[in-house]
């Protein structure tokens, strides 16, 4: 995809995320919008995973540790053809598989997540399995910066370095806001790069809403042979909609009809401006 096409995709994804959150009257809006570009680049440019090869042991794996931002994942998986997009009309409805966190009942989802601090250990086990079997697939996991205080992340970070998992990539969606307050005020995990480095990881920082920059970073894996890869993706929570950006209210805010229309207008204008 050209960079322009990738950017178009991101905006289309954002529109759909909001559409289905509006329909469900629930969702993690701000965080889904902050990680949209990361998912876009991974699924459209980087990972070897598709509905056709999803049962292949050689596929790349994506494990979403920040499971609450499932709307972004579902929209991207639908676009990849894992299921018909109209299924998302049942998001969070009685008996729907499309619940508020990733579940394997939905085609394309690798692991049931939602409790924070689980994605990285799962990804480490998966990456170890690849090494044991001399398989070349890569494992990506997306963490929120708000979940970095979970101790299990750091347990897993140690194992990843111990087992030299350069086939593993942990991406921190660093939107710097969590449900209560700015992340630095809740439990400061900065400087995050130094923490990962001191745990034996190779670290790159990137503008996590810049598809071109993200693509280059992911293409440069492994950053250092024999070291697991950490990408600190600096993002904007609520990215793409002016009144949602950097606003605590939109952590799991659901737009009103008027707010939704305003958001669509802004996103359409962004599309035209590309």
């Amino acid at each position, binding site marked *: 995809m050209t960079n322009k096409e990738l950017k178009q995709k991101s905006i289309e994804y954002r529109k759909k995320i909001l559409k289905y959150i509006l329909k469900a009257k629930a969702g993690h809006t701000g965080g889904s919008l902050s990680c949209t570009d990361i998912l876009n680049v991974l699924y459209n440019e980087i990972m070897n995973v598709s509905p056709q090869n999803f049962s292949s042991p050689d596929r790349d794996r994506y494990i979403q540790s920040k499971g609450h931002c499932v709307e972004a994942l579902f929209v991207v998986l639908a676009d990849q053809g894992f299921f018909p997009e109209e299924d998302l009309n049942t998001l969070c409805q009685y008996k729907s598989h499309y619940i508020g966190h990733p579940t394997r009942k939905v085609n394309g989802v690798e692991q*049931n997540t939602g409790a924070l601090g689980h994605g990285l250990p799962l990804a480490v086990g998966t990456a170890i399995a690849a090494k*044991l*079997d001399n398989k070349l697939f890569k494992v990506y996991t997306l963490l929120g910066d708000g979940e970095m205080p979970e101790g299990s992340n750091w347990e897993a970070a140690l194992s990843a370095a111990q087992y030299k998992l350069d086939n593993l990539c942990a991406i921190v969606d660093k939107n710097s806001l969590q449900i209560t307050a700015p992340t630095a005020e809740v439990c400061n995990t900065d400087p995050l790069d130094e923490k990962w480095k001191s745990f034996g990881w190779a670290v790159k920082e990137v503008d996590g809403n810049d598809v071109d920059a993200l693509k280059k970073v992911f293409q440069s894996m492994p950053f250092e042979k024999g070291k697991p890869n950490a990408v600190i993706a600096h993002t904007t929570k609520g990215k793409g909609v002016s009144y949602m950006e950097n606003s605590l209210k939109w952590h799991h805010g659901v737009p009103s009809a008027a707010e939704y229309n305003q958001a669509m207008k802004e996103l359409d204008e962004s599309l035209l401006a590309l």
Partner: protein
Amino acid sequence: MAEQINTLPYKANLEIYSETLQRLAETDRDIIAVTSDSRGSGKLGPFGKRFPNQIIEVGIAEQNLVGVAAGLASCGKKVFATSPACFLTARALEQIKNDVAYSNNAVNVIGISAGVSYGALGTTHHSLHDYAVLRTINNIIIVAPADNYETEQAVELAAKIDTPVYLRFGKKPMPPLKETTNENFEFGKGRIITEGNDVAIIACGETVYPALEAAKLLRESDISATVISMHTIKPLDNGLLAAVAAKCKAVITVEEHSVYGGLGEACASYLLQNNIYKPFKIIGIPDEYTVTGSQEDIFNHYGISKKGIADEVKKLLTN
């Protein structure tokens, strides 16, 4: 801590666990042990030496142990996540619930030195909660093998099936419950050790042996007992439970677990909800600060012993 030295002619179930796993690993490179600095206490030292590429060491980090195990299992590995039951089923409970059971990654969660096996090391090292908490989690089979035979069978079966399993092992050398065994071992099917018509003693894990000894003692008082090794706590063998309860005048359960939420309450729940009303008693560890001492001291204190069980049977039958 110093490992208990086996001076008896019998082996601990844990040793059989390790031997069986080694035998399976000889022909199956997908057998993987994951340990949290626990290969010594899990008797997996020899396994690690023989199969260095089939043991994953995560250090003392139980949450990561289970998460990593689940990731490995998702790639088709037959994983035995081995750690002291006390830590594994408490600290890493959320990983067992979500990453193993809910995500249906067929990890074999191996709780070692379970119950009060650690004796005088105290409550931090006891697991008297594991049946209770795991019973409330969907999609995990809970098994406490009683003797070496059940252990070997359970480990082989766990390696075969695509369902999460919790296996619980103690450290004590365990004599065989039967001299010869040619029965089919299945999860969810209790094992009849001896048959009688007065009382049904239903036990699991290391408490089956004292239950069997109690049955022998009771014969001196002309009381005949059925002894069941209910190695699978979940799914419970309801059919066998109903049959022995119907046949006998009273039912007594014995477990190395809190009297809350374990085998006893599982049996009571089934019997009551199916209108089978018999005098009933749960022997286990009561809800109090556990008495200090060795496993044997603790067992004797709470009546998990030949005499203790026999006395309770007599009380139950005379009431």
